[in-house]
């Protein structure tokens, strides 16, 4: 079953890369390197604190004050949502969708399975990010920008397992790709 065509991105690769590189330079020049995933733990911690504050205070990680308040990092994540929303609407590409072209080209309109896979994937994404002390932004992009040793094992495992998983999940999927 042929899915929809993968659309060309709005910016060519070098322009998009330079735009994002400049955002990283702003971030490092003004505050600290880009990072996203910590705030998921922060929001969970604030919720847990409502029901079990002793647990939070005795925990080796979330007892630290930075996990108990909404600051710069939280507002950065809110900004990502606002910025992406605005860019999508202004470019005319905001669209309610339930799946991706690569998924549809292999699994058809199996939206329920896409949602289930998406939820399970999200679980692994954040769990892995925190185990590795950072996500694709904080550990991979920012790690390499600073030439941190920590970025090397993380990058090898991220792309090794990412490519293996994409092979297993999307093998045989051939969506049309707009050049």
């Amino acid at each position, binding site marked *: 079953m042929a899915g929809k065509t*993968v659309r*060309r*991105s709005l*910016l060519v*690769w070098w322009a*998009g*890369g330079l735009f*994002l*590189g400049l*955002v990283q*330079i702003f*971030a*490092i020049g003004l505050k*600290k390197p880009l990072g*996203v*995933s910590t705030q*998921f*733990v922060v929001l*969970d911690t604030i919720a847990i604190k409502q029901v079990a504050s002793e647990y939070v205070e005795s925990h080796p990680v*979330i007892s630290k004050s930075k996990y108990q308040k909404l600051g*710069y990092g*939280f507002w950065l994540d*809110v900004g*990502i949502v*606002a*910025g*992406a*929303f*605005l860019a999508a609407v202004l*470019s005319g590409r905001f669209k*309610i*969708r*339930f799946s991706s072209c*690569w*998924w549809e080209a292999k699994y058809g309109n199996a939206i329920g399975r896409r949602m289930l896979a998406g939820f*399970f*994937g*999200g*679980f692994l994404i*954040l*769990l892995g990010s*925190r*185990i*590795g002390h950072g*996500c*694709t932004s904080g550990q991979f*992009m920012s790690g390499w*920008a*600073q030439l*941190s040793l*920590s970025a090397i094992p*993380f990058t*090898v*495992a991220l792309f090794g*397992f990412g*490519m*293996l*998983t*994409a092979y297993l999940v999307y093998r045989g*999927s051939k969506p049309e790709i707009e050049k």
Partner: protein
Amino acid sequence: METNILGFFIGGLFGAGLFLAGLADPDKIVGTLRLKDLHAMKTIAVFIIAGMAGVWFLEAAGVVHLGVKPAHIVSGLVGGAVLGIGFGITGYCPGTGLACAAAGRIDALVTVLGMFVGALAYILIYPYVLEPLDAIGNYGKVTLMDVTGIGRGVFVLVIVLSVTGILWFSSRKKPA
């Protein structure tokens, strides 16, 4: 307060950039992981080398705010692998998941919900599993410059020039 506004502003640029550059697009990410559509890979390469060169200039100008993370070799490998599996299934990561949900992707919204549960699992297992894991192969907050004794400028020049060269030659032969 000002720092929150700065966070929102930088996040706004980041979210818009992820969307415009096509990284907040699960099809572009999966296409790159399958090596069938290299747009995202090339974009990420430019993102990294631009940031790397920028850090070098900012350091020379004395206005750099670094945040080098401790190199826990085992945690890095395990975390990267677990994230990689989720990344390969969905085509999302934490930042692009948020951005894609904001652009109307309901499946990304479900992935974001999964992320909150993943964060909870992290909190719950940390004292039993992850704290011991962090202790194995922990080299501390070190950079490649600390490990090798070679200066940042040398690393930046070699990496930026070679990546730029690869991108240049790989993009030149295709006319369209």
